[in-house]
């Protein structure tokens, strides 16, 4: 098992790697990262997983693509009003493999969301299947829309 294979592959224009790296940075570090202390940010670059966000009357569903992340290594955290999802990409690569081409170069996903007050972060449900994470964030009972009936007097 070799976790780092995704980071080793040369890319076209390897001679200009330094420039590449500089050009990659703004894309990889999210806005949330900028708020974290320097030490926490520097050692772990991460890709931003693609998400769909849906809202219905009872809550919000977040669907995130995190291929290569296993159930055990996935981390879902809620701190105050920030929900963050993070997980390493692990793929079983043979020991002696030499990476020749790579579109996935950073073996980690990370993304954070700011929750709003009507969401109940204590009852979040998570389900990970085939690399797709499904988070269900219910709304507080009293925050659900109420139909107000108009009486005709």
């Amino acid at each position, binding site marked *: 098992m070799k976790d780092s294979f995704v980071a080793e592959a040369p890319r076209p224009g390897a001679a200009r790697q330094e420039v590449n790296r500089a050009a990659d940075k703004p894309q990889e570090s999210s806005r949330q990262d900028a708020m974290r202390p320097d030490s926490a940010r520097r050692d772990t670059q991460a890709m931003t997983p693609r998400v769909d966000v*849906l809202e219905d009357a009872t809550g919000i569903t977040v669907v995130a693509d995190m291929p290569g992340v296993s159930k055990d290594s996935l981390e879902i955290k809620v701190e105050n009003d920030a929900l963050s999802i993070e997980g390493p990409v692990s793929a079983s690569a043979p020991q002696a493999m030499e990476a*020749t081409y790579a579109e996935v170069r950073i073996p980690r996903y990370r993304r954070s969301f700011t929750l709003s007050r009507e969401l109940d972060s204590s009852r979040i449900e998570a389900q990970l299947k085939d690399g797709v994470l499904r988070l269900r964030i219910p709304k507080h009972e009293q925050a659900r829309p109420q139909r107000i009936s108009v009486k005709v007097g």
Partner: protein
Amino acid sequence: MFASMMTYPGLFGDFDRLRRELDELSGWAGLPTSIRSTAPGAFPAINIGNTATSVEIYAFAPGIDPKQIDLTIDRGVLSISGERPSGLPLEDDKVNVYGNERFAGPFRRAISLPDDIDSTKVEANYRDGVLHISVSRRESAPPKRITVQ
């Protein structure tokens, strides 16, 4: 009308120019690429590695029924194709959709394999949304040592 659009390309023209300039800066432009390469962000993302005895291909294709993935090797070209269902509800006014970044629809990617592969010895596994294809190389092709005289 079209001439004026060419002269003042507007917002989208600016984005396109910016993208091309970034491409040039990062060294992508001008270098030879694979004839089957696609635009960045294509689904599924692919990583390829070599060992002495095999070619290892990883396709990052989350949320797909493995039975629906169509894998073929034809004259040294491996194709991965299939269709990814949309996770979004159909025309339902009770659901608001905010982010819609995930790929949905039919996909196809092709990879040209080295000459020494044995297309009868292919293994494919799907785990955690990653399709791992291992194609064996023919045994008759170990690296040859050449003596310098």
